[in-house]
């Protein structure tokens, strides 16, 4: 049996079918940093709650909804890559085969 996937389709396992492992680890790391920051600099529980949610919730929403279905983690990765080296690549695994047909 042959399954046909689009070439740009990313097949990744997701935790509970919602969030993939890379994003989940990134989220946990970010929440950990925010938690440490909040506990180091603030004493009031209310302020701790507000700042933790304020800094953690947007990332959670971005992780769930993403950008046009694309994972926010990868969007930031692509964007940062583009800003560092402004070149566009059209990647194809079998580019040698394709180009070998042309003289």
């Amino acid at each position, binding site marked *: 049996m042959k399954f046909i996937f689009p070439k740009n389709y990313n097949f990744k396992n997701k935790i509970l079918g919602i969030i993939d492992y890379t994003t989940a680890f990134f989220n946990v790391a970010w929440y950990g940093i925010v938690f440490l920051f909040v506990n180091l600099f603030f004493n009031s529980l209310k302020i701790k709650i507000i700042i933790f949610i304020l800094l953690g*919730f947007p990332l959670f*929403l971005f992780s769930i*909804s993403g*950008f046009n279905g694309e994972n926010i983690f990868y*969007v930031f990765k692509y964007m940062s890559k583009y800003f560092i080296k402004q070149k566009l690549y059209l990647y194809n695994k079998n580019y040698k085969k394709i180009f070998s047909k042309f003289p």
Partner: protein
Amino acid sequence: MENNTDITQAIIDTINTIFEKLFASIDNNLYSALDKITFINSDILNDNTFEKIFGTSTSDGILIIANSLLLGFILYYSIKYLLSHITYKQIEQPFSFIIKLIIFGIFMNYSFSILKIILELNSNITLAIQNLGQNIFNSQISFSELINKINTNISIQTSSIDIFSLDGLIKGTLSFSLLSLIFSYSFRYIMVKIFILLSPFAFLSLCLDTTSWFFKSWLKNLFSLLFIQIIVYLVLLLLFSIDFSNSNILNKFIYIGGLYALIKANSFVREFIGGISTNISQTVQSFTAFRS
């Protein structure tokens, strides 16, 4: 031989005495509690502890979390709006977002009062059904009155019950059905309170299109839980409308049918509107299915 008959009679009398005590205990304690737990109005919110959990001001209780999430939504939208200039993705206009944020922010902070009005409206509909019944049948439409009617009209005497007769069997079925009903309605009572606690988040979720599903789901569940109350009182009204003056076997079974309708009211509302199941036995079944 005579000795054997005596022993059998003694066993039957003992079993009957045990069941008499059990039914008397259920009759004395259960039905007033069932009335209180089924009839939900805004009084359930007049509880200091519950108000403290919900939050009396914007910086207390659940409301502080909801307001923090509101700020989180603003930050989320700001980043998304900024990125949309780079990714050329079309997103909601800032003016539309701000208007939504203000309106639903107000709704969120006044959700306690809004929920009070909704509960009062629902209890008013139930009271209207009760008053209608009181005007027509000259008796209060309630579970305690219903059981009085069952005990007097169907000639089931709690003082001398024979469990090994049809009357005893019917009485047993009625008592245990009502017992399962009180578990189901206690669960409903708790779930209504939980959905009230979730109300600020539900209103908040309307700020963004991607999260608005939460409000729809919350509203459907809460409405189905409140709608059960109306269905229950309609069934009670119907049961009171049946003439039981000529007590025959059919009437007794109609009473049992009515009680099954009360038990099945949860499932009916769930199929009719949607929402969560408050059927206790079903939850146990699904748990056992999960284990196996």
